[in-house]
């Protein structure tokens, strides 16, 4: 699954996402990216943080793929 790929490869992420993940203490490797080529974006970190706080809510992440 894409999730496993993400965890084994060096994660693609924007610099802002990386800086935020570091600041919030989130392991960026566990965050699913919705940017181009699966890049982890700021919004993904923000959502991961919310999910972290409210672990049950996970609304339709997989539909957030960006088309070509």
């Amino acid at each position: 699954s894409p999730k496993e790929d993400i965890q084994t490869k060096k994660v693609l992420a924007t610099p802002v996402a990386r800086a935020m993940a570091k600041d919030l203490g989130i392991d960026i490797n566990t965050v699913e990216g919705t940017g181009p080529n699966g890049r982890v974006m700021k919004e993904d970190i923000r959502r991961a943080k919310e999910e972290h706080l409210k672990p049950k809510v996970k609304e339709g992440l997989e539909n957030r793929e960006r088309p070509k």
Partner: protein
Amino acid sequence: MITEGTRMASYDYEVAVIGAGPGGYETAIKAAQLGKKTCIVEEKSFGGTCLNVGCIPTKVLIRTANLVSEIRAASEFAVDGVDPAAVSVDMKKLQQRKNGIVKTLTGGVQALLRGNHVAVEKGRAAFVDAHTLDLGDRTITAENMIVATGSKVFMPPFIAIEGESRVITSDEALELDSLPERMAVIGGGVIGVEFAYLFSKLGVKVTVLELMDQILPMVDPEISAMARKSLEKGGVTFRLGAKVKSIRDNHVHFELGGKEEETAADLVLMAVGRVPNTEGLNAERIGLVFDRKAIQTNERLQTNIPNIYAIGDVNGKVMLAHTASHEGMTALTNLCGGYAEVDYDKIPSCIYITPEIASIGLTEEKAKERAGKIKVGRFPLAANGKSMIEGSTEGMAKVILDETTGEILGVHLFGSHVTEMIGEVSAAMAAELTAEEVIGSIHPHPTVNEAVGEAFMAAWLGRAINNV
């Protein structure tokens, strides 16, 4: 079950775009490039406000105004043989130049539509239902609709116009082939300020009346104050906090600080704003939800009727040509089954006075509200070699960052060429680069653009290199 194929076949088009302004025509072209059977409906001129009575014609006139200033300053640059007092503008010829460029560009739009196999449906569109448009003599149907009907000048009903006054809008201001002596501009937004700059450079005595205590509200107040001072030096009078009551017999009457005042003007330019244009569109009747005069959409540009999108000025969000096109691309992504949103904090905004203003993201105050802790850096153009060379050391680059992550929250530029430079910041913000990446990249020498790099250093590292 209805298959995609059969559903499709029942409509004339997969995508119908209503309005051929920069939002509509670019979106229609893109839709066709993406393989959608597309039509565009336009009742008047191709290119919409932007090409006919907006971005393009204003900048043609401003181009000449800038040249006049440059010529008048020639001796500062060791150029002889120019008599500054003799320099003047042939307004009729300028109108010809403007009309020529507009004609070339609007002709170009039609050629582009044809070249991309977009069906052009001339006429005024009115909704019959969510899939059907009445064009007067015929109807057309489409699976998806993109409303891009733009905006029109707002004429405030609370300002009484009486007696013998000549009151015009930007539309007429662009057509002037002779100049008044004194002009009043009501409204200190982008359009008002650009015209104030233009006409003052052409020799008109201009007074700008603005209700708020600041001109150019989308720009960081520090920069807009600099711009105001610069325009004042150029001869424009600003009356801030002025509440215009009436225009009567070539005088504008207003209230300022509790007192009644007036200013004489042979010509009054009404530039208090624009309103979304849905005239005759029948949009309410098919149930489209409005937000005041604007067709309401979500960040995906979808209206409350799922197959109808609204982009550009008509949705009332950010009234800029490139916003309209960008919203169109976003709408298409969503319409094609993808997911995209517009981030309205990442839209550059340019003001074509001299020096130019280019701005993106939040003002310092808004950034503080939003992010809590911020870092701010400034670099004055007086410390920039290229600005010195150009004789344009007024202005600065101001950068606002998130203190923790270095995320770029806002950049505000005032100087030569800055409208051509803000693309760097726009790309950096779109790709979520931080200050580190911008600082690590190379700004060539000698450029005004170096000031952007320096302002990022000033913000992020606390110190620029070329400024103590």
